[in-house]
């Protein structure tokens, strides 16, 4: 039992890391990863939703009728997303302003619904919690690393938390602004995927 718990937890961190291996949840990934900070914030919000929706879906898996399971999953997920939205507004308002519309859009994030459907609906509560937490942390890692790469190249800074850059590349560096704009997200993600595949082959 303990062994499979660890296995379900760690698979989200590397072997099935959502963004790079499953290639799920691209909408928020492309839209919010302008800075590392945004990636971390979005990842944490998604982790919270993933963990609790997985737990609840798994708890109710024998009660929910199969024909309306998707509707039930969406209700559960939407509830947690709205809670996240209220809490972010109350305590991290600046981050809420930056992530804006993409917080409510976690409801339709394929990672969350995908884990509810593919995993939590068929497994025990403990395993589902481990899966949700692992996937969430993996998603956070993926978003923040993509955000860090884009921010470093596109703006020449690195922001971890609080809105002020942790460090800035020297004045001689001219930021390659393309990377923090929409198309740069695709290029950045493509390069990260390529890198992951190269490493994964060994």
């Amino acid at each position: 039992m303990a062994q499979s718990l660890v296995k379900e937890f760690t698979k989200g961190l590397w072997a099935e890391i959502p963004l790079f291996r499953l290639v799920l949840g691209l909408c928020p990934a492309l839209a919010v990863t302008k800075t590392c900070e945004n990636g971390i914030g979005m990842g944490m919000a998604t982790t919270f939703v993933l963990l609790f929706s997985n737990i609840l879906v798994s708890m109710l898996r024998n009660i929910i009728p199969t024909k309306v399971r998707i509707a039930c999953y969406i209700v559960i997920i939407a509830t947690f997303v709205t809670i996240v939205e209220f809490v972010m507004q109350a305590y991290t308002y600046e981050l809420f302003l930056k992530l804006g519309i993409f917080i409510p859009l976690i409801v339709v994030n394929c990672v969350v619904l995908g884990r509810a459907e593919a995993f939590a609906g068929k497994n025990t509560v403990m395993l589902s919690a481990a899966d949700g937490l692992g996937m969430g942390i993996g998603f956070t890692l993926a978003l923040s690393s993509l955000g860090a790469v884009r921010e470093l190249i596109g703006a020449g800074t690195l922001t971890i938390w609080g809105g002020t850059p942790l460090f800035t590349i020297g004045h001689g560096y001219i930021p390659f602004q393309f990377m923090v704009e929409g198309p740069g997200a695709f290029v950045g993600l493509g390069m990260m995927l390529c890198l992951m595949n190269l490493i994964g082959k060994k």
Partner: protein
Amino acid sequence: MREMLSMIVVLTVLTAVSGGLLAAVKVKTEPQIEEQVLKFQKAPAIKAIFADATNDPIKERFNVKAEDTELQVFPSTLADGIKAVAFEAKGGGYGGPIGLMVGVNLDTDEIIAVRVTTHAETPGIGSRAKEDLSFVGQFAGMSMASNFDIKGKGGDIDAMSGATVTSAGVSQAAVAAQDLYKKLKPEIVKQMN
């Protein structure tokens, strides 16, 4: 039949419970959210409107009440001794309510400036109402008795191209501000003296 019943019962119970939970969370977080909105939305808007204020309008804010409408107002004394107030009114935009902070000169009933506060408009389209000051700039200097509708509806305000619904929402907020001002001005003046 049994299956259908269970589907209905499960969905009903689930939605009811989550509705109740969300209501509880909303009640719990509301005061904190209001504080954050004041700090990050209203305060910067008021600072922009009353750039030359000699007092702290946010600290001196008070509530006025008349005919069962209550309003939070931010009084200010400008550098040239002019008394002014700012208050927020709401209009319906494309993605939800738009908050508009309106600063009015109490002596001449003229608008000093307006700024958009909270909104959920499309980034890059409707959100220009907040970022691009040329739209809200139109209101500056207008009398509170003017017609704040957009030109398409027979008013005096030029809408932003591509963002008509947002523009109309801001206009609607300005019209709402007009009503509030008409109703509450005597009370505001009374409380400021």
